[in-house]
């Protein structure tokens, strides 16, 4: 956890010429954020088979974490759920996940991804600026060289997810209607 927060408080470069290490640092922070998002989101009870069933994180598209995500979640639990990470290129393959990270590589088929996962109790996290506005639950954004995030509460509610007010407080709130 110490690592997570140290990373979180570090500023990250957002310019076009961001170096290799800056990029890896950015994704280390984002990996930590993914784990933290899970802490502040409640899934409907039927989303888990048992109280200690694994919480599955799916990575859709080209994995930008370079192992940082696996390192971050290793040994961690969220409300007693151990964490599993899986990767796929087809959104339908990740329909059983609780959290799906949509990589920047999927920017062109966002609507397809949302159509596939939108109504399910899945916390979709897009690595592109207008993901939430276009019907996703949450997306990362860079603000004043810091990693922040936007949340679409309507989309969250549609999937049956309850997002902690503290998390909403920290997020930029957006509405899907503006994006369509």
């Amino acid at each position, binding site marked *: *956890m*110490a690592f*997570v*927060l*140290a990373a*979180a*408080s570090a500023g990250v470069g957002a310019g076009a010429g961001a170096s290799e290490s800056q990029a890896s640092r950015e994704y280390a922070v984002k990996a930590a*954020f993914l784990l*933290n998002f899970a*802490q*502040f989101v409640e899934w409907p009870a039927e989303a888990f088979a048992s109280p200690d069933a694994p919480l599955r994180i799916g990575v859709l598209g080209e994995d930008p974490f370079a192992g940082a995500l696996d390192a971050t979640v290793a040994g961690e*639990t*969220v*409300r007693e759920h151990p964490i599993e990470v899986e990767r796929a290129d087809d959104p339908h393959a990740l329909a059983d996940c609780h959290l799906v990270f949509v990589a920047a590589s999927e920017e062109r088929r966002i609507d397809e991804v949302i159509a596939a996962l939108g109504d399910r109790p899945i916390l979709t996290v897009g690595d592109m600026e207008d993901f939430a506005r276009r019907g996703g639950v949450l997306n990362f954004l860079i603000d004043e060289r810091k990693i922040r995030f936007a949340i679409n509460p309507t989309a969250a509610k549609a999937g049956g997810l309850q997002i*902690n007010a*503290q*998390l909403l*407080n*920290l997020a930029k709130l957006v509405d899907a209607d503006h994006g369509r």
Partner: protein
Amino acid sequence: MIRLDDLPIRRRLTLVILATCSVVLLVAIVLLAIFEIVDYRRSLVRDAFVWADLIGTNSQAALAFGDKDAVVTLLKALRAEESVEGARVYDAAGEPFADYVGAASPFTPSPRPEADGHRFSRSGLEVFSPVTLDDKRIGTIAIQVDLGGMYQRVWLFSGVSIAVVLVSLLLGFVLSTHLQRPISAPIVALADAARTVAERRDYTIRAPALGRNEIGVLTDAFNHMLVTIEARAAELQRSNQELEQFAYVAAHDLQEPVRMISSYLQLLERRVGTHFDERSRQYFAYASNGADRMGEMIRSLLDYSRIGRDGDRREPVDTDKAVGAALENLHLEVQRSGATVSRRPLPRVVGDETQIVRLLQNLVSNALKFRGTAPPHVTISGRRVGGSVEIAVADNGIGINPQDGSKLFALFQRLHRVGAYPGTGIGLASCKKIVERHGGRIWFEPNQGGGTVFLFTLSEAPDV
């Protein structure tokens, strides 16, 4: 310094009551103050932990996502608490993450979080409380609270306590002054009665009996004692009177036969004296001397019995005149002994002039009688002592052994053989009787340079 034992019982009771009051009050106040401080500290600690918990719980997400501004905003909620000097949130690594600095007091946060819990220091109260998320520690919140409020409370409490003690003491003083009366009044009354009895020798006085407690018993016992003494005194007075009456009557009635013996001895001598041989003349002289001495003794006894018999007069007496009269009466003796008499002016006294003349006469007469080989020298002087006059008759005579002091003033007591010095042994007894009837005192001291000083006291006459 006034000793507690010398204080009047009323003041003492009041003092005891007030002292008890003060001690009890002070103990109560100190205990209350301790309780108050402990309770206040406990509530401070509790409040600080409540704030820490509240802010900690609400800053979980902000800490988790490293949002410093959100934490600062949360910490600003502490502005409502004036006593909070400041607060600091540390991240999971123990690095300072966000600060809040209060308005009033200086905030001196610790660079690293200390062990969870609270500690009081001179600067104030510090609490360290963990911030957890899903049972994992994600940071620490520290809150520093100013103790000024507590000290203010202590001062306020002290002020109120002093006021309470003062008011209570005043109240206690007023109440005890009234409430102690049932205890002190009978004791004071008893003491007053005892003092009056001692001063006036009036045994008819009774102490008022108030109540049936220990003091009541004491009062009863005291009164009973007075009844007994009064009865004894009356009995003693009666038997004394009887005795004096007897002495007077005996002396009076003995005068006649003694005078007859003397007269007929004189007649007998005149008729047959010429026929006496030497031995008969000697026997006759013995008989005649004896009769004369007996007559003199009876006369002295009669005089002694007569002192105060017709009542004692109490009037201002010119003491110098009395001394003059006494010396006039002793004119022959003074001349015969070749004595010199020195007189100093004396203050006026109150008493019976005849008796005072006799008193002085007896003392001067003794001074002349018990002379040494040198011509007698008598000095009469006096001085004021309080409301009394102390008169001294000093001589240069043979002196008196101090061991004989007790015998000296007794009736018929003589310190010398009958032949050595003339006298009946009644003179000093008369002096004592006169002085005591005047409420005075008579005694003697050795005179410096030989001889004796007789001293007596009489009441001083008020200025005319």
